[in-house]
């Protein structure tokens, strides 16, 4: 309305701005609608399903896609973005829409309902109670007040919060279950915030680092929209070793790390192992793999490093000598002697020629081979995720929220009327309720309560018959009728 105030006289302003307003309202309503939510959730599910089925380039590389589907079909998948679907524009747009719709729905429909939680329940009249999906009518041989307090008692035993007002009763159970949508949606919104912050500021990566070398963050991975900053410190590997089981299988890997700041000053030292990372300046550094990288040898006076490759539990380096003859060096770990094998075309299998301890040498005819050392390499995984506390909080909210959603919210109402049956106290008790979830279980509950009340009164009638004198009708008024709250 304010937009058009200056332009036209009051009488004519109605059509165009209210159209705008109406269009705006209906867009907002559409964005927050459950129908859109269900559509988006289903589309996302379908997209993720395709992503689960097709090997993803970002995980296994393009070659795997080609191996699995053949050159031609793989090309189709790659061009369609299916082999990298979680980075596709389609997926981003979908998540964007999901976010918008989640925000719209949460603020329009989910959070406003929290107000309902604070409102005390209303009381219903007999006629309204009888129209409820579940209702009962009992004729009881007691006054209406007695009947009401008996019902209130039974309900409280079942964890209902009970409100009494004259001859009317209202009760509710599991009201905290109504927090479910709000808690879940707050969690989801926080998760989306967390993931967004992570993709703007977080980074991660993996680097194999040889003993004595340093880990730097230059090659780290981050998202396209990244606005973060890489650390200017580095991490030096001072020592790294493998601990074995007696069988020779690896038990644990250790690396002694030193954080060195931009001035070259060491600022933190720590030994890491699998499941025991180093944390500095918000970056976690994990021990993730381990191996032997090279073997340093001296042939007569010529120094040479040979690359080691894993061969089962051992590592081996190969030195071809021409005409099909190969020298093979096999290392078990950093301290064990190096075993030297020879293989010629005439020999069935490699023959063990010698074992050389570290810093020892052996003569092989004209060549003296000295074993200097093996150089281990430690696989360091690192990541920086500034939004992790937010993400973890979001996880907590989501778990709590969906747990709350399994709590059924139940309401009961009752009204009692005194009846006159041959001058004896009697009343009609009408009670009923609603439950959106677990209706039939609720119905059973109410039936059980009705049966229990009747039974209790029948027993009482038995005992009152025996000592009728004690039954003083004056006392009935003593049963408290003030609104009780659990």
């Amino acid at each position, binding site marked *: 309305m304010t937009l058009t105030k200056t332009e036209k006289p009051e009488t004519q302003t109605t059509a165009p701005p209210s159209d705008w307003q109406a269009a705006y309202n209906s867009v907002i309503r559409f964005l927050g609608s459950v129908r859109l939510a*269900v559509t988006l*959730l289903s589309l996302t599910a379908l997209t993720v399903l395709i992503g689960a*089925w097709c090997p993803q380039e970002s995980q296994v590389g393009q070659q795997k896609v080609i191996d699995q589907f053949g050159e031609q079909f793989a090309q189709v998948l790659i061009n369609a973005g299916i082999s990298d679907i979680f980075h596709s524009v389609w997926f981003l747009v979908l998540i964007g829409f999901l976010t918008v719709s989640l925000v719209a729905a949460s603020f329009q429909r989910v959070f406003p309902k929290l107000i309902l939680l604070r409102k005390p329940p209303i009381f219903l009249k007999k006629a309204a109670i009888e129209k409820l999906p579940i209702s009962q009518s009992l004729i009881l041989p007691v006054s209406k007040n007695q009947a009401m307090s008996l019902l209130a008692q039974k309900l409280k035993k079942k964890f209902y919060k009970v409100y009494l007002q004259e001859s009317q009763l209202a009760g509710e159970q599991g009201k905290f279950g109504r927090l479910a949508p709000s808690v879940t949606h707050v969690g989801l919104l926080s998760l989306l915030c967390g993931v967004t912050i992570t993709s703007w500021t977080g980074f991660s990566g993996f680097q194999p680092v040889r003993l004595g070398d340093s880990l730097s963050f230059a090659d780290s991975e981050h998202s396209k929209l990244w606005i973060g900053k890489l650390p200017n410190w580095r991490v030096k590997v001072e020592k790294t070793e493998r601990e074995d089981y007696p069988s020779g299988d690896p038990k644990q890997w250790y690396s002694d790390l030193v954080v060195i700041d931009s001035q070259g000053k060491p600022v933190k030292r720590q030994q890491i192992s699998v499941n025991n990372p180093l944390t500095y300046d918000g970056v*976690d550094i994990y021990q993730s793999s381990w191996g032997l990288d090279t073997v340093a040898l001296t042939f007569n006076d010529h120094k040479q490093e040979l690359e080691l490759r894993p061969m089962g539990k051992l590592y081996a380096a190969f030195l071809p000598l021409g005409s099909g003859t190969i020298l093979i060096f096999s290392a078990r770990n950093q301290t064990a002697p190096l075993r030297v094998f020879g293989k010629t075309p005439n020999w069935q299998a490699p023959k063990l020629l010698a074992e050389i301890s570290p810093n020892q040498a052996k003569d092989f005819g004209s060549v003296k081979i000295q074993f200097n050392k093996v150089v281990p390499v430690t696989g360091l995984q690192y*990541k920086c995720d500034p939004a992790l506390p937010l993400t973890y909080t979001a996880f907590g909210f989501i*778990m709590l929220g*969906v747990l709350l959603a399994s709590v059924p919210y139940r309401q009961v109402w009752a009204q009692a009327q005194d009846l006159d049956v041959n001058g004896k106290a009697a009343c009609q008790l009408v009670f009923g309720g609603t439950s959106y979830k677990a*209706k*039939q279980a609720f119905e*059973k509950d109410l039936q059980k309560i009705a049966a229990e009340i009747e039974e209790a009164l029948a027993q009482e009638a038995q005992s009152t018959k025996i000592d009728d004198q004690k039954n003083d009708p004056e006392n009935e008024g003593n049963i408290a009728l003030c609104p009780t709250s659990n």
Partner: protein
Amino acid sequence: MSDLQLALTNTAGISSVMSFWVFVGSNAFKRWQPLMIKIATFVMAVGFIALSMAIVGRGIEANRFPLANLYEALLWFAWATTGAYLFLAKSYGVHQLGWLASMTAALFFIYGSWLPQSQHEISPLVPALVSYWRQIHVPPLICSYAMFFLAGLSGFCQLWASGRILSVWSCIAALALAATAIALGTFTDTNTFVLQGMFVFGSLAGVLGAAKSLKKIDEKKADQKRAELFDEVAYRAITIGFPLLTIGIITGGLWANHAWGTYWSWDPKESMALVTWLSYAAYIHLRVHRECKAESLSLVTICGLLLTLLTFLGFNSLGFGGLHSYGKFK
């Protein structure tokens, strides 16, 4: 595996088959129905106790949490299905679900017993699985799968009770094709594309066919009250299964972050669990919306059942990769 353990597991398997037949029989002899249902439920409860003991015994014998390979996962699944049915039957008295639940348990026992011996043996763990997170992460997932199975089976019952006989048959065909694909994938060398096609297109065709024939109602067979009951049981099972799945997925994320420094990596099985989660989130919203007919919701629970089957067993047997596979054993 010790003899006692074997005996307990077999007791559980046999009682699931027995209770199945007694449940089925109870429909044929209306006069004896209440008694037969009592007997069937009792037999099922005996099987449940035996299976609980077998699982605990396995844990003690192996000196680790007894949930590390496919065979053990199947035992857990059968355990959760029977337990959840006994629980639901107690509060709802849904006996038609009884034969479906015991049949499911029995089929999973049979599937498990056909696995190669190496799966039955109690083997030590690969290093990646040695973590207390495993027992926090996996059981909720398996239990949620069981709840979703029961929800889907209630969906079948709901469709039947509302007179949608044709739709029921269409869904049964879908489920049968899916199960066949999984069995072929586990025990034979059938081409994976054939299997995947069988699963996916079978499911699609069956469910779409069922959706189309929702309008065909056999009024004689319809029983509105019972249809409502099954609708409610399905919803109840999902409101229990959904939090379990949520907890399973999130604790998996926490484990991964603890072990590898990233809580989500789009691993196929992870993604598949997310698909299932999103689908049931859609179901819950359809439900809160209150505009969807109960029959359509039942179809959603059946789609959910197929997705759960795909997540639980399909991935291994239909040739999807990833870190979470139970390993090949062909």
